[in-house]
Structures are given as C-alpha cells and as structure tokens.
C-alpha cells in the first residue's frame, strides 16, 4: 500500500503547480558577439558618439515612427535595441540635424543644424559642359551647403530651444552671381557660383562629419570646423575664435588630456572651373559655375589646444581619441579601413573588422570601437567591434 501512496506524488506535485508564465512576445533578438551590426537604416547612420559606456548618440534619418527628417539625432543602447530621439523637442519639424556629441559630464549635447541646401540652384532636363559641349550627369552635383548652426542644449531638454547657446557657420561663395561672364552665353541667364571646397564633397559623400563639434575635457569649450578652419567656441559667447594653425582642418577631436586637438587636413591641387548650361526643353535656362578642388590625400594633424604648429601623423581623417590619449583612431581612405595611430609616434595598425569604416569613436572604458560602415553610397550603418589590448 505504501508503494501505491508514492504513486500520488506526481498528482500532488502537479496539483500544486501554479499558472504558467503569460504570453511574452520575443520581437527582438539580442545582439551579441565581438562585432555587432547595430543599425540598419537604409540611409545614413553617422557620427557615433559615446555617452558613458552604455549609450551611443548618432546622426541618422527620420525613420518610422520618428518624424520624417533628412537628419535626426538619435541614441541607442550599446547592446542594440530600439533607438530614441535625442532632444525630441527639436525634431518635431523637418530640420536637418547632425553630429550629436554629449558633453563629458553628459549634461549637454552639442550638435550641428544644417541650413537648407542651396536648392535654388540650376535645374533642367539636362546640362552640358560649356567648355567641351559634353552632356553632364547633373546628379553628380549635389546641392551644396550654405550654412549651419552649432548649438548646445541641456541633455534633459530643459529650457526654450531659442535660448540655447549657438554660433552660426557661414559657408561662403555659394550663391547667385548674375554678373558673372561666361563666354558664349547670353548674359540674361541666371548664373550661380559654387565653390566646391573639400568639405562640401565630404558632406555630399555622407554627412556633416567635417563640422563635428568636440568638447574640451572640462566641458567649457567646443572645437569645431567651419569647413575652412578650426574654431574654439565657449558656449554662451556670440562668436567663436579661430584656432591658430587650424587652417583647412576639419573633424576636430579634442584630446582626453585637453592640451591637443586632432583634426583632418586635406591636401588639394589647384582648382578647376566647370561651367554648366542647363537646358529645359532644349532651351538654355541657367548657367552654373563650379570651382572644385581635387583632394590628393587627407592627413591626420595634431595641434596644440592653444593654437600653434600642427604635427602631421600621417594619412587619416575623422579622428577619434583612445580614452587614455595614447592613440587616435582614424579612417584611412587608401585602405578603406580604420587604423589606430599611436600619438607618441609608433607604428599605426589597422583595426580588424573595420573595413569600410568611418567616424571611429572609442567608448570611455576603451572596450568598444563604434564606427559607421559604408555599405552602398548613401547608406552607412553603425557597428561595434570589441577592442583587444
């Protein structure tokens, strides 16, 4: 009989069992591994910047459910998952925002707001090069930037946006020049004069990285480029101060020690002039002159934060510091990869797993390198690779 009683155990145990867990949808797969594909937006995901070790700020487009936008400021967890808008109160309307960079204390965010592109530029069914009479694909010439605004705003969104500290950036030599003579063209047609500085081309290739602001370690100043030179700005002041020795430098990156600023400097050849005649229904409609500078290479330079002579550290662009200040991570176009360049002058090494990488940013704990990887023209995604020491 005792043996039969034991038969009841399964019944008693089963009877005491409580309700199973309710339904839980699993609609996200955890992102794991040493190389993580973080974002998949089919447009541009650029300019990753760390806020602590757990959150990445970055520039992206206004994908659903965010308001439609050419440029939106977003943040997402290092582990991946759902992104959120940074400073959403600024993004209720179609504004082109880019390069969000949190301050070292994380209490403020510096970002670039780009003015509307120079969309009044010439348009037509087709265009021909006046000089050689060849037909030109107008899609090659993206509308140029005309200006931008560097702003700083409290990370918690407090205060009226109109009261935020800001400094304006004016990109010169883009606009209407009705008096410009073009041989063989009737003077009655409108004419546009456009200087295609290297930063314009960089922008056209994928973002506002050249103007990316960089906080001083104490959070008192912001270094940035207006495309032609480096400037230092103390938020709250009306104007920025050019940094001596910072000519033709873009993509500023303030060192963790605060005494130096890394940047990229393009080496360019002489300019070339291209006059384009736009046609509408085979009738001349508009003339556009583009003055272009051909970039031969881009160099990583190191400047004293107080200004002075720049030190050339070799090929490199879009620099990002290692948190201990021992090295700078840069993109090298020649190898289409991210490299680690020792500041003290050692041998630069390519970072594995970063082919096609841009905009390197190392987490404060030095564990992860975030970067934007180009997949196709106009489509960058954010990636993470674990750094080995």
């Amino acid at each position, binding site marked *: 009989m*005792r043996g039969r009683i034991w038969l009841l155990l399964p019944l008693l145990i*089963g009877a005491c069992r409580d309700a199973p867990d309710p339904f839980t949808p699993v609609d996200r797969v955890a992102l794991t591994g040493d190389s993580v594909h973080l974002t*998949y937006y089919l447009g541009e995901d650029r300019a990753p910047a760390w806020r602590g070790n757990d959150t990445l700020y970055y520039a992206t487009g206004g*994908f659903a459910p965010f308001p439609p936008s050419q440029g939106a400021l977003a943040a997402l967890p290092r582990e991946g998952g759902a992104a959120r808008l940074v400073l959403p109160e600024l993004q209720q309307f179609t504004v082109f925002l880019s390069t969000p960079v949190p301050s070292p204390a994380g209490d403020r965010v510096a970002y670039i707001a780009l003015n509307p592109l120079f969309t009044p530029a010439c348009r037509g069914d087709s265009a021909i090069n006046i000089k050689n009479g060849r037909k030109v694909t107008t899609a090659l010439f993206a509308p140029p930037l005309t200006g931008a605004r560097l702003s700083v705003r409290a990370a918690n969104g407090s205060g009226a946006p109109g009261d935020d500290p800001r400094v304006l950036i004016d990109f010169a030599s883009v606009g209407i020049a009705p008096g410009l003579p073009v041989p063989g063209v009737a003077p009655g047609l409108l004419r546009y004069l456009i200087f295609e500085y290297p930063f314009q081309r960089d922008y056209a290739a994928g973002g506002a990285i050249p103007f990316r602001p960089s906080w001083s370690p104490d959070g008192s100043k912001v270094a940035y480029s207006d495309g032609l030179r480096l400037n230092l700005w103390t938020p709250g002041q009306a104007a920025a101060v050019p940094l001596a020795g910072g000519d033709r430098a873009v993509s500023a990156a303030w060192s963790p020690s605060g005494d130096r600023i890394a940047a990229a400097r393009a080496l360019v050849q002489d300019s070339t002039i291209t006059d384009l005649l736009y046609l509408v229904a085979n009738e001349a409609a508009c003339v556009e002159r583009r003055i272009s500078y051909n970039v031969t290479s881009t160099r990583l330079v190191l400047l004293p934060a107080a200004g002075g002579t720049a030190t050339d550290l070799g090929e490199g662009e879009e620099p990002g510091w290692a948190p201990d200040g021992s090295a700078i991570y840069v993109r090298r176009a020649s190898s289409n990869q991210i490299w680690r360049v020792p500041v003290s002058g050692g041998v630069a090494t390519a970072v594995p797993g970063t082919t096609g990488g841009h905009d390197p940013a190392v987490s404060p704990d030095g564990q992860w390198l975030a970067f934007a990887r180009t997949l196709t023209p106009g489509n960058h995604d954010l990636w993470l690779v674990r750094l080995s020491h």
Partner: protein
Amino acid sequence: MPSRLLATAPTRRLPSALRIPSALSVLLAVVAGGAAAQTNGSILGQVTSAAGEPLRGVQVSVTSPALRAVTGTDGRFVLGAVPAGERTVHVEMLGYRAVTVTGVRVSSGRATELKLQLEPAPVSLKGIEVEAERVRLIEPEVSTTHEVVTGRELRELPLDRIEDALELATGVSQGHFRGGRIGQETYVVDGLAVKNVLEASSKGAALEFSPTSLDEMDVITGGLSAAYGSAISGAVSYATRRGSRERWESNAGLRSDGFQPKGSGFTSLSLTTGGPLRMLGDGTTVFGDLLLQGMADADPHARGATCLSSTDLPTEVASRLQLLRGGAGASLYCPYAPSTLPHDAGDRVIGFLRLDRPLGGGLSLTATALGNRLQRQLYTPELKYSTGSQLGQRSYGSLGTLTLDWTRNRGELTQHALLRGGVMRLDRYLGALDPWTMGDRPTFANFGFGGFRFLGEDFARSSPEAQLQAGTGVPGYVPEGGAIGSPYGPAGQGIFFTTGTPQLANWTRSEQVSADVLGEVYTATGVVARAGASGKLFRIQSYERTAAANPGSAFNYALFFPRTASGFGEVQWGTSDELHVQIGVRLDAFKPGLDFRFDRANFLAPSLQTDWKLALMPRFGASMPLPGSRGRTVLRANFTRLAEPPDFQYFLDTTVGDSLRTSIRRQGNANLSFEHGSAYEVGVTQLLTPALSAAVTVFRKDLENLVSGDVRFGSSTDPTFSLADYGTVTGLEVAVRGRWPGWTLRAGYSLQKAVGVSSGALGDTVISVSDSRVTYPLSFDQRHSIDASVLAGRAAGGKGRWGAALAATARSGYPLDRRLSVSGARSDLPAYLPWTSDLTGRASYELGSLPACGCRWRVTVDGRNLLGLHNVMALRRDSGLLGPAADALAAVEGGVAVPNAPIPLESPRYSALIDLNKDGNITPEEFRAARFAAALDRFDPSLYYGEPLQLRAGVEVTF
C-alpha cells in the same frame, strides 16, 4: 420462514448479493406526479400479511431524519415530508420478521410507494435487508417531464460545475430549456426559489452548488406544478445533503491536470463531512461541503485566428493566408504555441453548511448557509497580450435560510407545514482588473486566496453624487492605445489596445429577504393537498460606466426596491394503478419599485409609479397506465400556464452587445409586465424490457409578451425594452432509461422547432417598429440535442473495485442569422452552425484501506472531450465562417498606414517576427504581410471553439 415482500409492479431490483428469497421483493412507485417547490417527498404504501391480509399497527420508519408512522386498519401508511434522496425504511411488528429496505429513492414533491408482506416469526429472528431499485424505468403516476440526477450520479460523473449535469437532462441544451431563453427557468434550493431576478437572461443562475453537496437534482422541463413560479421553460430543484444521524462520514477529493505539461492548470479540492452533533441535542446533524477550484485557464478554448486553415476563410482571404503559410511569412502563421497563449485565470469557492435539529413534537429546525466566490478573467481579443490590463469578473453569492418544519404522521395521514425565512445576496463586479490581481496576488495551484481587485472599485461603488462631484474617470483606468505586447511586436501598433485598460466598470448588487409558508396533507391513498405563499423584498443596485477612463463620461446608476408575492394551491390524487390527476392554480405578483418616464426624450414628461402586475396560472396534469398494458405503458398529459417577471435589468438602461464592443444601448422600461406562455404536452412511456424503458413526449409552448428591444418610444433614438416578442416552440423528445446488473443507462433525444417574432432584447440587431413583423426562427429552431450517460461498476452501485461513468452530449447548431435565414439575402451563408459533441468520462479504482488511518481511498482519471473534437461553437455572420469577410479584414488591416520606407532594426516599431528575411529592415511588403496576420488575429475567434481534450487525475479518501 422468511418475511415476504410482494411484487406487484414490473419495476424492481434485488441485488443477488443479498441472497434474498426470490419471492421477496419490493414495489417502489412514485405517486403524486406534480412537483412542489420543496425538496421533500413522501413514502406511502400498504403492509399485508403473507395471506394478503392488511396488517394494522405495523411501525414504518425512516432515519435521517427520524420519521415514523403506523399502519391503519387497511394496512396503509404514509410518511410525509421525507427529504429527497436515498432513504432506508424499517418495517417492524411484533410477531413478524422485521424488514429493512435500503436505497429507497425519495424524490422532491413525489410519493414513493411501498407494498410489503411480512412473514410471521413467532421467535425473534434477525431482520432481513433488501435493496430497492435506484433507477426507475417507468413512472405511471408522473405527469411531468423531468429528469432526476441522483447524488450518486453527481458524485460519480466528472462534473466541474453542477450546470454540467443539467446538460444530461433531455430537452436541456447549453442552458436552454426546451428552446427557451437562458433564464426562463427557475432554481429552487430545498424549496426556496433562488432565481437571479436581476440578470438571469445574461448571467444565468445566481448561485452555485458543489455537486457533492446535493442529494438530488431534479430537472423539470414540462408540466410544472403550481408550486413553481417565475419560470416559463423549466425548473431545477436542488435537494441538499444532510448529515447522518448515526455516524460521521467524510470525504476529501483532489483532482488536477497539473501533471500534464500543457494542462489547463485545473486543480480541484473537495471536502465533505457530516454527522451527528449531539452537543446540540439528540438527532442534531450537521453537514458541510467545501469546493475549491483553481484554474490557470478558466475558459480553455483559445486558438489564434492566424491558426485557421484556408477552409475557415473566404476564398480571397484564404489565398493570402496560403501565401503567409507557404512563403517567407510562415513565421507569422500561428506565431505562438498554444501553451503560451494568454490564460483566463480564475478560481471558485463554494461552501455549504447545513444544520438540522429536531425540536420535539414533530418540529424541526433547519439552518443552511451557502457562500460562493466565483472569479475569472474575461478573454477579449484586444487585450489578450496585455497581461497587466485585463477585464475580469468577480461574483459573490450568499444564501442563508432558517426553516421551522412541523410534521405529524398519523398512520394514514401526514400533516406537514413549514415556515421559512431566507436572505440572499448577489454581488457581481465587472471591470478592469487591478494589476495586483494579475501579479502579486498570492495563489497556490492557481487558486487565489484573495478576491480579485478592480481598478477604482471603491470609487465606482461610491455615491453617484460623489462621483459627479469628483468629475473624473474611474481612478486607475487608462485610455486605449498602444501596441506593445502583440505577437507582431510594436509593428502591430493600432490593432492591439494593450497599453490602455478595459473601459467598462459595471457592478450589480441584488439583495433579497423572503418568507414563505407551506402546508400540506398526505394520505395513504395518495391524495395530497398543498398550499403555500411567499413574499420577497428586494434591494437592487446597478452601476454601469462604459467609458470609465473618460472624466466626462456618464454612468448609469439605479437603486430600487422591487417586491414579489405569490400563492398557490394544488391537489393531487390517484395511485400508481389508476388515473392520477394534479390540479393547481398559482397567482404571482410583482411590483418593480421603480418610477419611469414614459417619454424618455422629454424631461418634462410626467413620472409614473409602476403598479403591481398580476399573473394567474392554472395548471393541470394527468397520467395513467394504459388499460390492458399491465402497467407497461403509461400515458400522460398536462397543461400549464406559465409566467415570470422580466429580468429586473430590463427596467434599467443597459449596454449590451457583442463582447461589450458595440455598446448597443437599450432604454429601460420599468413598466414591463409578466412574460408569459402556455405549455401543452402529451407523452407515453413504454417498458420495453424489464431493464429498458423509453418515453416519447411531444409538446407545444406558446411564448407571449417576451422582452424585446426593438420598440422606440417618442422621439427617442435608442430602442426601449418592451414586451413585443412572441413565438412558438414545438418539440419531440425521446428518453431512454436502462438498468442492468452493474450498470445503468440514461439517454435522450430532443428536436425543437422554434419560430417567433423576435428582435432579441440582448441581441445586436435592432428591428425598427416600422418593420413588418416577420416570423424568424428562434435560437433553438430545428435544434437536435442528444444526451447520454452510463454508469458502470462501482459507480452504478456495484461492489467491485472498478467504476466508470461516461456522459455524452451532441447538438446541432443554432441558426447563424435569423434575419438572413428568412430573407435569403445571403444564400452563400450556412443557415445553421455545425453540430457539436463531446464525451466526458471518469474511471475509478478502489484501493482499499489506507494504512494507519482506517480510511478508504480510490484513484480516478477524468477526461473531458475525450475524443478531442474541435467543436466550432460559433461562426461570423459576415462570412459564415470562422474567419472574417474580406472587407471587414481590410478595414482593420487599413487602420494603420503602411510606411513608405523600410523600418530598421533600431526603430521602436521594428519586430523581428515581421522582418521575414532577417535583413534588419521591415520592407513595406513585409509590413503588409504582418498587417494581414495582425488583422486576422484581431478577429480572434478563440471563443468559437469548445473546450479541448483535458485529462485529470484524482484521488479520494473516505473516512
């Protein structure tokens, strides 16, 4: 020479195990065919000597309770007011050998007839014991159509609820009695009517009893006696158990399907005890019963819509489903396993206590107390993925009675009278559950020790003035919106309202105080005269708020005090050998106790006070053996005039409709009068073999003055409850009963034709008063229903170790759409729903005595829907299928625009389930596929299915 019991009728059963001499037998018959609103019956008969001479002065007695009678000069006796159930009758007289007859079946309101012969015994010899038959195959004296479910059957059949046993009565199907609307029947507990007067038609019976707390359940579907009121279609009479006077008897039972990984989480614990309580005086007995049930899924019907097959959908929708199933979207087809579907947790507590104390002089006092707590989540497709935001219902029910009973047995005459007082309270709350209920409430085996809590219940129960002054919604309620938690992830936004709470807050409280008096006289010749009267005072409260989160939303609140009064008288005469007649008359009255304004659209219209409504109901029944048939054929006929007050909810404005989504309004009408009808039936019962009988009954029921919702008054735009519906039900019933050694059979078939002018007071269609009064098929038109139950082995009273009980029901479907079936406008739709059937069963095995306890124990295995049939209980009216029509689907599907651009993985709207090619982006094409699947899921027909196969193991200990 042993005593002899003469057999004079074909219905008898003498177990061979008792080794009773073949000449010894007992006749049991039921006299007095009408049921009375009480649960007492009587035992009458005649005692003769071996030579056939009537014996005078023979003492005839029963125990529990102690009743005694002495035969008169013609040897006849009557024991009146014998509680229903199986009784033991002792017959003794000096000079004769005593006889004890066990298993004498006494039924409510009926007389059991015994004819006995005693053998002379000059010296004292040990008495003999015989067992009476437990299943009566033929009842020559019964003019009603009824089905008695005995206490043994209630304990042996695998019943989760007492209502399950109702389905085994011929003519009762899914709670409908002979084609009547739910609620047109009354429930009587030990003679006291306990109908849910407020909302029987929508909420059913008011109180629940544990199957183990009853001695008998009598289901009457035709020929109601004058003692039954407030019913048009039938009556259910419960006779509760009482404790034994001789010894304490207890039983504990545990059943569960928890041993199965995918069980429905059902656990039931039953405790029963009863016995003498001598500290309160000799003969005092007490009986207690407690039933606890915990259910992880109280309504285990769920299947997702996306699990439908192509044949369940219209052609144009089915092709899209095929693409979903066969292509890259296969992951959207049935995206969740059944075990992870949301559960409607619930639990049930039923406690019953009865105390019987003789007071001497034929007086006895009975006190009973019943308490119910029934609560469960209510499945709604919109909220099924939101575990913290669910609709739930909790019902408390309590009943207390005090009965002073006087009986005097004077040999051939028994006089009986009772005076009873009763109090009853029903409290039901329906609303959004407090998350505490879902998460932190202590539970064990899915049984919650605390009652459900609801958001803002205190506020909803506060005075209307306080609520208006507060000017807020019900605290805790959150407006609808959001989508988190759907199987399609955030991309299902707009379909699943999972971040808001349900929007309904509704409660009712019904309290009643009743008093009734009954007097009756039984004679040994089978004449019974009975008269009674009762009065009830009610206090009704009703509260309803359908947009509870909205601070400005209006609510309905009513407090009123209805009253009812009734009186009846009836006379029955005749015995089993001759014509038996029952004539009675009943007068019912009620007063709504609620003022009303005839013109609802005019605030200045005068307010009228409702008057008493009266209904006089004559009732007649007769039965007799067919001459020359030697009692093998019995004819019966009856006519009854029936009436019931409409549900008191019809006095009030009510929101009704399709799972509370359509918010169909009906304006209350406090001036409603009785719903009434007339019923006629004739029947014949034939004893086919000594072990098998069959009864055929045809009936007609004219229903008049039924509550309708279609008539509009004045300039009101909402329909107002009125009494405009009427109809006719005609039917045929065949009932078969059989008993063989070691097993019994009960089976029935019923077919009804039901037509009438009906708008359906609670339906979602409205017929304008200007519409022509077209006759539509009622719910039960052409309804076939079949029921059967088989008890075998120990379950049938056998002595072996094994026992088995099987119950099967099958039924044809309701008309799909009454109006369409008449107009023929949609010839593509089926006229009727499909057949459904199920088979339940229990096998038990006695294991003997438990060590060191002196208890006996047995193990059981229960199965529900043993054949695992996928019964389809409902179809959509727009498509005639389980799945929605294409346009209805498209309307939901189009509720959210398909995004122009892909949704990347980092978007809050991303869902890996929808990213079919797993490239990190949801393309518009993938989104459209998901929208289709999500829209299908929105039309979740989970409750369209019957319950699935469930197996439960159990153990019972008796001590």
